[in-house]
């Protein structure tokens, strides 16, 4: 096994890109990352994507993106793990470089969701859940998260308004991220008045439907110094899985897949939660942010929300989350999200996060969740000291 480093990153603005196709979104991120890395050729390309078949009528994205990115001929394919597809693609890129099978690998996450009509997008997203026993009963993906949120409030005695700090923090941070979809502030009062979409989940508990692409270039860490002025080492890359269906879990309010994934990541990196300077968590819904904080060891069971209420998730808090807006406000183009998270951790570790810079950030963690917790991929990145 070789150490692996990220030598370049790129991203498109997240939003409703009516004028840009799926392939061109991917292309924009690929080119930005390759320019940042200063490379013109790679050995392989892995594309993280969930919904291109359902929403764009296009599968076979590996060869497609490779061709349009000027990389025709290289090894390339799409990797799918629902909303965890982006980090799953990064994981495969990591495996290829760490195993010595490739030297320079580009990973791109891309999703184009806004071309389709609402009910079709809702149906497509529900494919992250158990098709025979969740989606077939008419449950949307939002509804599955709503069931978790209601039960969480019931068991631990929280009110809906207690979830406001996640949206407030994410929107606050997105204001300083030029690539974010929602660059406006949200107050607790505005959160209280937001439209209910699937009770208790309201519009500001939920990440938006959107388009976007993000990319990273990987290289062996020992070569990275000569290739990049600011290489970032991947000190952990770990996956945990759990049941697709919430009803099959031992305790629906415990993300066992996330706990496994983070535990493996901490072991690989030889660190614990107290060493992590920032955490790009999977805040597709505010309940997921709370459960993720608990599964990753930042809070005890039922106390993830307490961390947010106590003001510990801001840039200057004990564990900054969603430092560039998170899924909530940067946006959640599902198959691209896992790569966006890693791009943002790289920005932080390079010291290029502007007004959102976490002071002296050395170790950053990104965690991408497929479905309601069935595939959880965790990466820990470290600034390479001179």
């Amino acid at each position: 096994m070789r150490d692996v480093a990220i030598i370049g990153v790129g991203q498109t603005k997240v939003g409703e890109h009516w004028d840009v196709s799926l392939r061109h979104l991917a292309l924009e991120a690929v080119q930005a990352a390759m320019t940042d890395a200063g490379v013109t050729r790679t050995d392989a390309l892995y594309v993280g994507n969930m919904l291109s078949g359902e929403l764009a009528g296009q599968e076979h994205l590996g060869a497609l993106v490779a061709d349009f990115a000027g990389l025709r001929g290289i090894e390339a394919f799409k990797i799918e793990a629902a909303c965890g597809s982006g980090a799953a693609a990064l994981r495969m890129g990591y495996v290829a470089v760490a195993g010595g099978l490739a030297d320079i690998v580009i990973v791109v996450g891309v999703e184009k969701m806004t071309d389709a009509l609402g009910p079709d997008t809702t149906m497509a997203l529900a494919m992250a859940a158990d098709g025979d026993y969740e989606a077939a009963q008419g449950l949307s993906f939002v509804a599955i998260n709503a069931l978790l949120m209601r039960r969480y409030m019931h068991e631990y005695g929280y009110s809906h308004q207690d979830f406001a700090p996640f949206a407030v923090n994410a929107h606050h941070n997105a204001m300083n991220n030029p690539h974010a979809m929602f660059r406006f502030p949200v107050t607790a009062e505005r959160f209280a008045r937001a439209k209910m979409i699937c009770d208790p989940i309201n519009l500001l508990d939920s990440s938006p439907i959107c388009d976007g692409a993000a990319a990273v270039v990987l290289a062996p860490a020992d070569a990275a110094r000569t290739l990049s002025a600011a290489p970032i080492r991947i000190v952990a890359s770990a996956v945990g899985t759990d049941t697709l269906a919430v009803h099959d879990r031992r305790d629906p309010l415990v993300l066992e897949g996330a706990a496994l994934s983070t535990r493996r990541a901490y072991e690989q990196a030889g660190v614990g939660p107290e060493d992590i300077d920032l955490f790009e968590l999977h805040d597709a819904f505010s309940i997921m942010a709370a459960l993720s904080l608990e599964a990753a060891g930042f809070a005890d069971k039922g106390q993830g929300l307490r961390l947010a209420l106590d003001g510990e998730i801001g840039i200057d808090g004990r564990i900054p989350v969603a430092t560039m807006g998170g899924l909530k406000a940067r946006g959640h183009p599902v198959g691209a999200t896992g790569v966006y998270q890693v791009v943002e951790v790289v920005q932080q570790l390079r010291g290029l996060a502007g007004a959102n810079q976490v002071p002296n950030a050395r170790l950053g963690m990104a965690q991408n969740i497929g479905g309601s917790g069935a595939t959880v991929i965790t990466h820990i990145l470290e600034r390479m000291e001179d």
Partner: protein
Amino acid sequence: MSVPRNWRLQQQRYCLVGEICEKCGAKIFPPRDVCPECEAPAQTPFAFSGRGEVYSYSTVYHPPRGFEEFAPYTVALVRLEEGPLVTAQLTDVDADQVRIGMPVEMVTRKVQGGGEEGAIVYGYKFRPAIRPTA
């Protein structure tokens, strides 16, 4: 939903047939042929009573394609009295009457389809318990 896919699930959809583990006694729904508790093979059919209580619930206003005619509808996780959780719609009840812990029972209802969406699919939903318990 395709006819063969629906047909394969008819024992579960109409009769809540799961499995029981001969080794540890765990009752399993949906069936998975391997006991989630002790990992022993578990292929003995077991019909659930259909009685349980609401573990959590929500209301769907923006349904997936194919479920528009029912919206808004209430969905729930139901804790069956034999142990497993089931994901299903609630029926015969107003959304604002539903509470966590409310006793419910399984009934067979139209779940999906008709018209352009293809064959009508029947399956389980849960309503407030009115049948006397045995």
